[in-house]
């Protein structure tokens, strides 16, 4: 009985979300977006918004279109229909690097650090961009940007990677590469963090580390995180969104979601 009621609550909640009106309360949002690859529809008329100062998690079975949603938000892929809004402004037509400069930082699911570059250079690039906008100096040596190097080191410090400073990324374990990935994303000094499965392929211990780290920074950023590990999601997220077959089936607090029928159906085919 009560479960149903709760389910309804979640549903209405969801219904509210789907009213496609840009609201100031949302820092970043997708309004009625659709993505098709040829014939098959990966995301269908999806509307979702992310309020600032919170940690949002996106759940959903494989192929639900979570990563594709990220790609649409950062314009790694163009939308087939719909709009992407950042602080209420249309950014649908912008290029990925332009969106990034507006303060949207992103980490990828498959670790995408520069394997041939040192840890320092990996982070340095991001910090340099954060400091100098799109400009790319062509004469002053990378080594001579003292303060940027210090910033980069700080970030490495934060994630406890300072030891690897001068090692090329390919020389370390996958887990450490994942951490570096986060470090790089942080170094772009964003307001919004899109983390695509930050703990994928990490050991129990490493996962704990990442989890605690994310928790520690969640006040300073709007964080949107795709994550499979329930414990991580449930413990640290303020808001959980569940996707299935390219649509949003539920949004709510961790507690609400855990009791949501639609979610159960989606996950356990109940």
């Amino acid at each position: 009985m009560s479960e149903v009621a709760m389910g309804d609550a979640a549903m209405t909640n969801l219904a509210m979300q789907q009213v496609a009106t840009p609201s100031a309360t949302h820092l970043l949002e997708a309004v009625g977006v659709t993505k098709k690859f040829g014939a098959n529809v990966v995301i269908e008329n999806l509307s979702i918004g992310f309020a600032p100062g919170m940690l949002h998690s996106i759940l959903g079975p494989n192929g639900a279109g979570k990563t594709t949603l990220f790609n649409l938000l950062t314009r790694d892929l163009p939308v087939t229909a719909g709009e992407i809004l950042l602080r209420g402004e249309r950014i649908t037509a912008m290029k990925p690097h332009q969106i990034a400069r507006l303060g949207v930082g992103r980490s990828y699911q498959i670790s995408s650090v520069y394997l041939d570059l040192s840890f320092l250079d990996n982070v340095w690039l991001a910090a340099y961009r954060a400091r100098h906008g799109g400009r790319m100096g062509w004469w002053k040596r990378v080594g001579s940007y003292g303060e940027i190097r210090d910033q980069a080191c700080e970030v490495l410090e934060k994630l406890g990677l300072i030891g690897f400073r001068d090692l090329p990324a390919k020389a370390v374990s996958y887990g450490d590469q994942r951490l570096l990935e986060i470090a790089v994303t942080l170094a772009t000094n964003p307001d919004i963090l899109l983390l695509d499965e930050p703990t994928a392929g990490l050991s129990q211990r490493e996962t704990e580390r990442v989890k605690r780290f994310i928790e520690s920074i969640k006040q300073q950023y709007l964080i949107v995180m795709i994550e499979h590990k329930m414990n991580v999601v449930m413990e640290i997220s303020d808001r959980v969104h569940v996707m299935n077959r390219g649509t949003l089936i539920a949004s709510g607090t961790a507690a609400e979601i855990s009791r949501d029928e639609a979610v159960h159906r989606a996950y356990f085919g109940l």
Partner: protein
Amino acid sequence: MLRTQSTVLIAASTVIIAALAPLVMPINIATEILIFGIFAMSTNLLIGVSGLYSFGQAAFFGVGGYVAGYCFVHTNLPLSAGLVLAMLGSALVAGLVGAFSIRRTGIYFMMLTFAFNQMIYYLAYSWRAVTGGEDGMGGIRRPALDMPLVGNIDLGNHLNFYMLAAALFVASSILLFRLARSPLGLVLDAAKQNPRRTASLGFSVYRAQWIAFVVAGAIAGLAGALFALLYRIMPIDAISWTSSGNVVFMVVIGGMSSVLGPVLGAAIFIWLQGFFSLIWARWPLLFGVFIILVVLFLRGGVAELFDRARQAFTRKTPTPAVQGGSHE
């Protein structure tokens, strides 16, 4: 810290190379090696640093040569003006070609540059009035170089002309070295490894690579201009796609991972051609075999030999290359 030194080292080594070359080989071969050294280094900015396999660099080499040639045949502009115009001309053409080509990646990019090269070749070929078509552009004068303090230097003299080439060689190698280690260079290297990520960091990969393409074009143009001055003619085949292929090969035998590798490549290339053609009329066969061997067994180019040698001396395993480095 290390980086600071290595600029000095680069400068030093280039100067030393330039100073030694004429002592050990005929001056005009030395001159030519430096000229193609410049050309090869500029090409390596694309191939080695940016991972853009351009098979059309001869086009820009050629444009530079023709522009300079035109200046020194039909006008009496001073040397400096002619060289600058040559670089601008090549930069312009490279800008256009780049704007088209860089949107495409991998093999498409390579084929586009190839096609543009061919196209520019045929344009030069049929624009007889200016380029002299198949017979080449002849009667190019070497204007005297008017230097403050030193005064007028007659470039008709082989040695003086060599000095000029050497000076420009050192200058371009330092420029390219600095560029490769500048933020732009790092972005290019990053984009080579993962363009998507680089964009998501907020860098315009397209812009970075376009800049690299233009710079490489301009410097290739400078080399072309010097080449036109060297023999006082601008022959059509200097612009054909085979010379594009040759310069790529120079880069590969020399090794892409260092700034000076390509220069070594140019030297070996030019020397081998001369050497082989003296010993056997069927020399291209030897040359082909050489290419095959290099590609199969010496992927990192001759520069790699040196590294291997060094590692043999100093037993410690090498720390993996951080800049550019291998593409395997």
